[in-house]
């Protein structure tokens, strides 16, 4: 991402977080409430994503993506509903950062993050199913354990 864009995001970070947060919680607050531990962790994840954008730190951005996807995946959201938070981010960023080439780069990076988030969301859904299967397998294994002697 260009330094101009990164600088613009850094300078208006608080405003962007607040606008983005407002839009996201409007949509999700019947499941993820602001001001609760889960809401706080969600906001932390959002801030990591934005800071990753602003600093060009891909691993921070990915950590943020994992944090929000992990929370979204335990709630009964459709993937499209869950990931609409990145459409919100696009709207907010395009309203607050310069247009032109910067804007196009911004869109490209958000699209990339959205796809990462989709992968992470689905991985966490799969983790839940795996945990279910493993729990029953484990029980069976332990029941059979005593038979070996």
């Amino acid at each position: 991402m260009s330094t101009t864009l990164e600088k613009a995001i850094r300078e208006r970070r608080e405003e962007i977080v607040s606008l983005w947060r407002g839009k996201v919680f409007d949509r999700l607050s019947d499941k993820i409430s602001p001001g609760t531990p889960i809401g706080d962790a969600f906001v932390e994840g959002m801030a990591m994503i934005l800071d990753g954008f602003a600093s060009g730190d891909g691993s921070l951005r990915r950590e943020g993506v994992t944090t929000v996807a992990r929370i979204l995946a335990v709630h009964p959201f459709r993937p499209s509903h869950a990931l609409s938070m990145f459409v919100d981010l696009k709207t907010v960023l395009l309203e607050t950062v310069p247009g032109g080439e910067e804007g196009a780069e911004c869109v490209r990076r958000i699209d990339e993050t959205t796809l990462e988030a989709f992968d992470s969301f689905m991985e966490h859904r799969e983790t839940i199913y795996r945990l279910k299967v493993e729990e029953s397998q484990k029980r069976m294994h332990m029941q059979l354990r005593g038979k070996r002697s």
Partner: protein
Amino acid sequence: MSKYLPKQSELVKEFEEKPGVLKGDYAKSEWWETPLEFREGNFCFPAKPEVLEELGFPNPRKWAPTDDDWKLPDGWQKTVMDGMKERLKKYRSLKLYLDSCMRCGACADKCHYFLGTGDPKNMPVLRAELVRSVYRNDFPLVEKILKGFSGSRKLTPEVLKEWHMYFYQCTECRRCSVFCPLGIDTAEITIMVREILQLVGLNNNWTLAPVANCNRTGNHLGIEPHTFVQNIESLVDDIEDLTGVTVNPTFNRKGAEILFITPSGDVFGDPGVYTMMGYLLLFHHIGLDYTISTYASEGGNFGLFTSNDMMKKLNAKMYHEARRLGVKWILGGECGHMWRVVHQYMNTMNGPADFLEEPVSPVTGTKFTNAKATKMVHIAEFTADLIHNQKLRLDPRRNDHLRTTFHDSCNVARGMGMFEEPRYVLNKVCNSFHEMAENTIREQTFCCGSGSGINAEEYMEMRMKGGFPRADAVRRVKEKHKVDSLVTICAIDRATLPPLMRYWTPGVSVYGLHELVGNALVMEGEKKRTEDLREEPMAGFEDGDDDEE
């Protein structure tokens, strides 16, 4: 003021913009008329008809919460209302809790299920209101007294569905009661409502199948005596392979001094079995004269999550076996709800056990006066006393491969007030221990999210949500102190926390306290130890190193 309370500006914004209970979609409705949706992941499978038949419980049938028709029995309204009347008369606490709540809201944001799901009906005050609103409608005198408070409603199938959903999203953890100025214990309301729901066949298989098994064979898995013995003997073999020491537990031995009872999760569950290995090593180390019953082969009691009568029936085997075997007193293993039953109810429910003696440690001579009535001592207390009196040879460096924190199990912490003993033991058997945040431990501990008989696979999504506050506190202590081991003294926790950690806080494993005791014990005649009880390498004890004492 709690930091979790939403700010006023947020509440205003939420009220103005978000469709919700207080306006918009439900503007002309009461709060309880918000829609209810059963879907995969938010309910436990109901009990199988054969399980109900075996127990003689009402209304055995095939059904699912997603069905429109729950096949309630004829006259179900009368059954429920009579059930409620009977319990209001019998249990003064229920009446007191239903009548005295002043809707102050202090409990609202204290429930892990509310914090994890964001669903207002999981606020303890509203959870109780689900039943209070019916109670108010159907008991005219109460209605008269309470007039001026919020409304009342009729008992309908939808109300029962709501009870079924939300009283199985309460894990009976009692955290809310710590913050209530009147001490209202919503867990007690949940216990009663679940008992009433059983009267019309609304239940869960994950609770009732173990109840039926326990009723038949003495333990949750329905394991028969020879298999129970075989499993423990396989642990004896594992101990011998690892340490070179042969421990000799005895079964059903008449005349032993002590009867040892632990949850069957310690005998059959992973990682519970490593805790069992720890007990076996400890008892061998001190030469304890103890025996294990193959009938009282379960300390856990899912009767607590079913009905008072069932709890009493399942618990009776403890004293029966103690009497039959002629022991002096009972030692109990690491468990949560078992200790709530033992500590709070057993003496009056199944006792008095005047055929037993007031427990005295045969090693230190310490009198456990707090167990004078029940004649049953908690293993953490027993071990803490041994350590305090320097009766154990311990090498805490053998746990140097673990960086620990401690999860207070709800029932041991809030149900019996035990906070310090496990911490004392833990600090003596390992060198790295860090507490989680203060508002998440001791009496304020957060539930694992799966207690009270809802630890079903199919309920995983809800369990992950309910367990979030606990997992988040672990994440924070992990980030701060590189903690990788969550120690607990509850068999249900040992089953429920591993998936919770895997989902929210990968890289943290779950241990029983006595597993770490077993790692640290220096046994007479042992071979050089290089691995812990899980066969994981101990740091600094690798082959070739010789830095043991």
